[in-house]
């Protein structure tokens, strides 16, 4: 007759100097239904070695020459081993029992009652499992509590952000609506200089509002991990040149001495040039804002170890008090001290810069002293990985065929106002512009001659801009011709999958259109300059 019982596997480490006692213990455990894998240790060194492996249970003799239950329990505790431990002894006194339990033993066994071994082990294992379970529950409830606090804090920050956002949006809107109402109601005589001045105020406030919205959208995108980074091989020298060019007007207006200092040994870096420019631009325009007229602003790019580089912008401005340094990279925390508040800004530039840098695996920082100027810096890895699959596919660079005359740009746009703006901007910059008002018109003109670049509005009267994009992409003559989408559609992802060089949002910033063409390698000599 065979009794079929399922044996419970048990890995047990036994600290015992007597081979006989060890055998008895194993026999009793097997009899109690355990399938035992056991190792006997009789010295601290052996114990130490054995604890490298996983055990379900430790059973230790209390009294051994040069060793003992106390040592075993202390070793378990100092090594942070959570395995349950039972102490076994020939002479069971009350005092050692209490000492063992205090030192962490789960139970105490007497060698003269071998029949009790298995039941005590069973109870000890059950207790140990329960202990682990309740510890797990405690740990989880602490985790939940922490998580809950984090959510509450995030929620509070969101509400605060919304309140600030509402405030920041209403401020320029107050000027836009207020002045527009005055002008519209005929409350201002068009013949007075005030009329023009108020129009200027509306325009400036409108631009400020747009900047605010763009910054907020970027901020939201970085937060959601959805900001596009399109890493490519970048020549830092070229980036520095382009940023200097963008800032030329501000530099001239405030007579800023802009100095650039590029460590040539950095070599090429691999990152999104647009984002790098955004970072440098934010720092530089801040530095200029807080510089006195005629002040010096320095853009310095140096090596930072072998894998990173450091972009630094220093100014000779008013400086920042130490207690305010922490607020700098936080949304809407424009410093209120003294004149700082009078410097218009969205209060988002530095917060955005910080996130842009961090999203690329870098870090930002600032050094400043009141009255002695500030230095803002960003340490950025030389190689930034593409962080999103939403990135637009890059148009492969083609060998540009040098043609005589100005580069030809086909402008596909149906809105009369935007047509005028695009045509005059591009023509003034020296491009040869051809205008198409509909998709069909665009395709007809496209077939007639070669173009160096195309700008497309996504909303056309006769066909979808996306259909036009597909039609152009299908034409082998379009290979390598940069296509720039100029659109009011805020979501760049709509053109994902199309070979689009760039997406520019309306209202159109003419500088960024030209900059985009230049990035695509389609450069022209401005009107009036010798070509």
């Amino acid at each position: 007759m065979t009794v079929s019982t399922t044996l419970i596997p048990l890995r047990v480490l036994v600290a015992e100097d007597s081979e006989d006692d060890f055998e008895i213990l194993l026999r009793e455990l097997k009899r109690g239904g355990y399938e035992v894998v056991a190792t006997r240790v009789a010295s601290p060194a052996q114990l130490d070695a054995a604890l490298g492996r996983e055990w379900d249970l430790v059973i230790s003799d209390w009294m051994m020459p040069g060793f003992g239950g106390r040592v075993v329990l202390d070793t378990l505790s100092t090594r942070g081993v959570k395995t349950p431990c039972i102490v076994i002894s020939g002479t069971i006194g009350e005092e050692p029992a209490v000492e063992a339990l205090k030192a962490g033993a789960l139970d105490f066994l007497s060698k003269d009652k071998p029949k009790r071994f298995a039941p005590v082990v069973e109870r000890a294992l059950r207790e140990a499992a329960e202990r682990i379970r309740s510890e797990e529950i405690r740990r989880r409830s602490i985790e939940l509590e922490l998580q809950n606090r984090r959510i509450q804090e995030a929620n509070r920050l969101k509400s605060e952000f919304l309140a600030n956002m509402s405030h920041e949006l209403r401020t320029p809107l107050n000027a836009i609506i207020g002045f527009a109402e005055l002008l519209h109601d005929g409350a201002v005589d068009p013949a007075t200089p005030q009329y023009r001045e108020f129009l200027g105020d509306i325009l400036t406030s409108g631009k400020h509002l747009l900047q605010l919205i763009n910054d907020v959208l970027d901020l939201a995108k970085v937060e959601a991990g959805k900001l596009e980074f399109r890493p490519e091989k970048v020549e830092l020298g070229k980036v520095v040149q382009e940023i200097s060019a963008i800032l030329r007007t501000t530099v001239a207006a405030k007579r800023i001495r802009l100095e650039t200092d590029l460590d040539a040994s950095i070599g090429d870096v691999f990152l999104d040039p647009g984002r790098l420019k955004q970072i440098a631009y934010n720092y530089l325009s801040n530095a200029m804002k807080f510089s006195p007229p005629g002040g010096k602003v320095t853009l310095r790019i140096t090596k930072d170890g072998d894998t990173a580089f450091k972009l630094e912008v220093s100014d000779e401005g008013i400086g920042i008090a130490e207690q305010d340094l922490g607020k700098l990279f936080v949304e809407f925390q424009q410093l209120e001290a003294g004149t700082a508040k009078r410097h218009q800004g969205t209060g988002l530039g530095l917060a955005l810069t910080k996130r842009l840098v961090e999203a690329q695996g870098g870090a930002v920082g600032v050094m400043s002293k009141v009255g002695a100027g500030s230095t803002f810096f960003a340490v950025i890895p030389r190689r930034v990985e593409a962080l999103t699959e939403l990135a637009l596919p890059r148009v492969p660079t083609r060998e540009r065929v040098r043609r005589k005359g100005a580069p030809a740009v086909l402008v596909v746009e149906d809105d009369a106002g935007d047509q005028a703006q695009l045509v005059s901007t591009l023509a003034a910059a020296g491009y040869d512009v051809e205008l198409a008002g509909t998709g069909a018109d665009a395709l007809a003109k496209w077939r007639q001659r070669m173009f160096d670049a195309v700008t497309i509005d996504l909303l056309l009267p006769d066909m979808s801009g996306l259909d036009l994009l597909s039609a152009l992409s299908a034409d082998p003559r379009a290979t390598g011709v940069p296509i720039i989408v100029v659109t009011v559609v805020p979501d760049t992802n709509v053109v994902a999958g199309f070979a689009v060089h760039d997406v520019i949002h309306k209202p159109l910033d003419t500088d960024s259109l030209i900059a985009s063409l230049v990035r695509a390698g389609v450069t022209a000599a401005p009107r009036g300059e010798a070509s």
Partner: protein
Amino acid sequence: MSGERILIVDDNPTNLKLLAYLMTQQGYVVATALDADAALASIERDHPTLILMDLQLPGVDGLALTRQLKQAPATRDIIIIAVTAYAMKGDVEKAVAAGCDDYVTKPIDTRRVPSIVARHIEQRAARGSGAPA
């Protein structure tokens, strides 16, 4: 009532200009201040009948300034209308608690603000006509 003195306090120069133009057009004598210190100096100099007060100011904010003015015997008669871009729940209560007599949210309605200002000044004049100055 034209000829009354109005002080406009706002840290944003463009918005200050808008309100100043609007009030000047109504025939008021307008003073402006970009912060609490300038406002206090102006009030000291020529006690205004009414203040259009932006609540977010650098340093001492508009709420604190309002409380200060409403507590001082010399200035508690000045009508204070909060003009603020804070438009969330609880903001009106805060303004009223600080002692503001009325509350206008930015963007302001340029057609309504003059009538609100006029109403407060008329009410004050009607109430104050029997009492000694």
